């Protein structure tokens, strides 16, 4: 015990009180906080979805089949994320990169769908300024979109690290934590999608 070459933090392999890695606990706490962030925005949306005197209401502009498809795309990305983690745990770096890239691509597809959808809505007169309903809708969905975008950046960074050989099998937890974040963003989208598009107003 006396000679410890392991710094107290951020280093793997140090004994912790729970046996869990520090990053994992921090990630859970952070995601808990994010949950309330989205919770408050979803509540605002529920309060405001019918509040539009001028301009269209949300229900007038939604294209549910289109959004269902892009939601499905995002859901599939959780699957590819799981496969990426499994690959690096096996030490299969080629597959790891493939699945990470696939996840990022699915995420980008989702974001493109969101941009397309926003463009259509704006053309139809449903904007952030048109009504409280519009404000609540766009702020909620674009915060989610920003989260997906950050996730994509993290995934691409992992691919770059892997290509430079900086993502050895021993660092599979890094992939795991990015995955945790990614799954969280997916789950939040399921809730948002249900609340916005499926629950009748």
């Amino acid at each position: 015990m006396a000679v410890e070459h392991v710094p107290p933090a951020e280093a793997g392999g140090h004994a912790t009180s729970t046996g869990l890695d520090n990053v994992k606990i921090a990630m859970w706490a952070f995601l808990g906080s994010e949950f309330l962030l989205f919770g408050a925005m979803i509540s605002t949306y529920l309060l405001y979805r019918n509040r539009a005197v001028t301009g269209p209401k949300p229900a007038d502009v939604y294209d549910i089949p289109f959004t269902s498809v892009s939601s499905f795309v995002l859901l599939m990305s959780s699957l590819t994320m799981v496969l990426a983690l499994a690959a690096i745990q096996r030490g299969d770096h080629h597959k790891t990169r493939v699945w990470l890239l696939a996840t990022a691509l699915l995420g980008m597809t989702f974001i493109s769908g969101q941009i397309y959808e926003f463009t259509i809505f704006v053309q139809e007169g449903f904007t952030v300024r048109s009504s409280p309903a519009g404000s609540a809708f766009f702020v909620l969905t674009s915060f989610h979109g920003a989260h997906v975008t950050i996730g994509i950046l993290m995934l691409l960074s992992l691919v770059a690290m892997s290509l430079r050989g900086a993502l050895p099998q021993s660092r599979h937890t890094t992939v795991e934590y990015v995955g945790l974040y990614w799954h969280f963003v997916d789950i939040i989208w399921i809730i948002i999608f249900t609340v916005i598009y499926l629950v009748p107003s």
Partner: protein
Amino acid sequence: MTTASVAQRSSAFARPTAKTGVWSWMTTVDHKRIGIMYGVTAMVFFVLGGVEALLIRLQLATPEGQVLSADQYNQLFTMHGITMIFLVVMPLGAAFFNYMMPIMLGARDVAFPRLNAFSYWAFLGGGIFMYSSFFINQAPDGGWFGYAPLSVKLPGHGMTVYALGLIILGISSTVAAVNFLTTIVNMRAPGMSLMRMPVFVWMTFVVQFLLVFALPVLTVALFQLLFDRTLGTQFFGDSTSNPILWQHLFWLFGHPEVYILILPAMGIVSEILPVFSKKPLFGYPVVVFSGIAIGFMGWGVWAHHMFAVGLGPVANTAFALSTMFIAVPTGVKIFNWIGTLWGGSIRFKTPMLFSLGFIAMFIIGGLSGVTHAIVPHDYQQTDTYYIVAHFHYVLFGGAIFGLFAGIYYWWPKITGKLLDERVGRLHFWLMLIGFNLTFAPFHILGLQGMARRTYQYPKNYGFDFWNLVSTVGAFVIALSILTFFWNVIKTRKRGETAGADPWDGRTLEWTIPSPPPEYNFAEIPVVHALDDFWHRKYVEDKEGRLVPVPAGAQEAAGHATEGYGGDDHGIHMPSQSYMPLIAAIGLPIVGWGITFEQYWLAIVGGVVTFAGLYAWALEPSTEELH
């Protein structure tokens, strides 16, 4: 992870290694140094907030005061409130979390040292950003709770700065909370079970939970305000907007915030009373569980800030009842503190005096708080000086007295020097007298009907006398703070050397040298009991009296007296880093860019932050030194 080749780099990107001087502070990741920086910065803001308070009081000293314009008055009371809450009490609490909590747990540092440095720099950045608004004479002027829709419509940049500044401070607090939570969950020394943690650590723990779950709700409200002001969204401005959405979101954060402010002080006092009574804390588990209960119940009472809004009788009754219930765990704590004092051999040292002052003032503040729970009373009192009296008794009489108790108590550990007792006592008595002189009259003024945020009051309303008394009191408080600074200056050179354990303490921080070495514990301690250190020093004889452990046995029991300090056995601590500072510098730049609608500047700030975070993620936490 660490390779020699990295350390040999001698480019501009080499890791900083300075151990002294300004750069060593700018790049430090040591939780103790960060704790000191939090404390010093909070003290600077305390002086600023105090000067604002004095200006307010000068304006109100006489009827029809002419010291300030109405506009300046609005800016001053708003900035005073924001400063005291977000830039003084919260960061002073964080100073102790940073410095003491890891040591009390028997850890060498927090879970994420660089993230910790980032929290500090983001806090400083947020504070500087807020205060920069004074230079354009457009400081926030919508009150500390910034009620929308008014705050959307206020002209100038003030409320935009308010929203952005609090978002930055929220980022700082959230990452700090995640860091501290992880530290408490995961970094405890062997044997330090949850029910062996010092009460201060427990209260820290509850506070971090509150921060993690309460701040995001405020963040959402702030973004809505910000977007309404800058992008033209309609969260508050439209005829169909809900006029009390802001209030619900704000107080869902704001009430837990009250406990975020007071629980650290409660924790500090719960550490001090046993030490200066030579008795264990009466009912340790009860104190812990009442703290947890307060944490949970803090959520259920937010709408008691909104009785006068007209939520309807059912909602008002429900929130009145829940508010009365939350007084119960608080009362339990007071009972435990008194039980700790009961029959103890009490030493009235300065930390003890401030702790007792805390209990007394907090009881007064708590009692006037319960009167707001009675809805008809609240209709009468709300937005009068009675409320102002109430929250100053809780926040100043409570939080600030408790935090000063902590400063006097832990000063010798942090600096190695004792503060002067005589000057300390003078500080205490001046502050106690000045405090009551200032705020007790507010109760009377409030009941007489003087409205909160009154910029001038007419002659012959019967407000003159008590307002003058209050202003005199405020200057007595200012004098007391000056005595504190005098004490600091006086003892810096000539103070008595403290030694490792000047108060005959009970917890782990007193086992290591004062000031502690960078690695805290040369050897990680093993904990066998609550108040482990105390049990290594004292045993009970047959009659149940405390007697010191015989000297020989003490040696055998381990490092009871000389503690766990000692030589550096080749311990590696995380390396210093530029990255937290760089990442944080971007935040106020983004703020200025958005405030002045210079979006290129906001993008520059964003790029700086992003680059800092990226470089940070790629740099290893430790580098081999040669």
